[in-house]
Every structure is written in structure tokens, then in C-alpha cells.
């Protein structure tokens, strides 16, 4: 229990950092258990919160930097987060429909891919450091 909590805390603490993917991979090397679905869902929410904070920044005008919101980054992060949420929702829905069962690998792979896309955008535009 303690180890699991520390793992979850580490994953969220790393939201917006390049190590997030490594932590996620370490957490999900085993089959996709219900607990890992929940960890994945929380990781998605952590990334979403990071993106939300970024979107609340003032728009970059060329004079108000460096803490501002890029129009290019905004155009990429919004659809990426929405796609990530779809993958999260699919996994959580499976857990509701099939209590205690292992989630299909395909749903899990979709979540991983969506998280990677979002993480790449966060890293590219340094979004996690813009709060």
C-alpha cells in the first residue's frame, strides 16, 4: 500500500516533466489491473490540470513574455488533452462494466499513446514550467 501510494505520488509530482513517461512505464510493466487504470486516470488528470493552468496564462503578444500562452501551443494542447480524456474514459468505463477484470491491452495502448502525445507537447513548449 505504501509503495503504491509513493508510486502514485511520484507520477503526479512528475506531471509536466520528462520523467513522467518513465514513471508511467515502470508503473505499468505488469498486466493492466484495475488499480493501474485508476493510476492512469489520475495521471491524465494531472496532465490536464497542467494544461488548464497554461491556458489561463495571458496570450503571448511579443511584449509580455516569458510567462505567457503561445497560440501555437494552445492549438495543439487542447485537442491532445481531449484525446487523452477519451482514452481515459474508455478505460474507466471498462472498469465500471467489468469490475475486477483486467483491462484490454488495446485500451491501455491508446491511453499510453495519448499521454505520450500530450507529454511531447508539454515538453516542446515547456508548458509544465509556465505556471
Amino acid at each position, binding site marked *: 500500500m505504501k509503495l503504491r501510494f509513493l508510486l502514485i505520488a511520484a507520477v503526479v509530482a512528475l506531471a509536466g516533466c520528462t520523467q513522467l513517461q518513465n514513471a508511467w512505464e515502470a508503473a505499468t510493466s505488469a498486466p493492466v489491473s484495475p488499480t493501474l487504470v*485508476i493510476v492512469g486516470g489520475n495521471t491524465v488528470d494531472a496532465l490536464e490540470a497542467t494544461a488548464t493552468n497554461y491556458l489561463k496564462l495571458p496570450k503571448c503578444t511579443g511584449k509580455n513574455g516569458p510567462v505567457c500562452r503561445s497560440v501555437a501551443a494552445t492549438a495543439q494542447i487542447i485537442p491532445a488533452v481531449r484525446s487523452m480524456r477519451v482514452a481515459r474514459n474508455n478505460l474507466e468505463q471498462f472498469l465500471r462494466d467489468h469490475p475486477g477484470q483486467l483491462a484490454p491491452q488495446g485500451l491501455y495502448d491508446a491511453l499510453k499513446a495519448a499521454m505520450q502525445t500530450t507529454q511531447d507537447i508539454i515538453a516542446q513548449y515547456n508548458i509544465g514550467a509556465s505556471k
Partner: protein
Amino acid sequence: MTAALQALLVVIAQIAPSLTSSAAIQAVVNALVQIVPVLIKEVQDLIPMVKNIIAALSANAGTTSDQLNALAALDAQCDAAFEAAAAAAEAEDGTSTSAPPTPPAQ
């Protein structure tokens, strides 16, 4: 406010391993769900921490479907905060993207 909330979260994290009954877990989850709207307004960065604790509690053997529903409710609140920020940013930028996905079922 932020320091007080963080202190509360640390205490919950410390007692989490000792929560063995479903009723006790549900009570903590319910309390956390109630403070999330305050977090969204004042200390949004703490939302993931709260959600982590709920997830850790939900991994306990006493987990019930009600706790999964509570997680879905938190998902919806995070999604709503994001969509509000996205709509404002897109309005300022003069852009628009496709409609947001359907929120998770409760």
C-alpha cells in the same frame, strides 16, 4: 490556505494505509470530493494530489464501485475546468477546435 490544505493531505496520506473498512475509505473520499471545488478556485495545483490520495484509497481491498464513481466525478470537475480555460483561450485567439468528448459516466 494552501499550506493548510497541504497539511491536511499529508495527514490523510499518513493514515491511508490503516484505512481497512469500506465505510472509512468512503468517508475520506466523500470529504475530498467536497473540497475539490474550493481547490479549483484557489489552489488548483493541489487537485492532482487529492486525486492521488483517492486513487490510493481506492486501491485498498475495501474498494467499492461507489469510490470509482467518486473518481469519475473528480474527472468531470477537472474536465470542466479545462474546457472553461480552453474556451476562453480559443475565444481570445479567434480559433476553435472540435467539440469536447463526452464526459465519463457516473
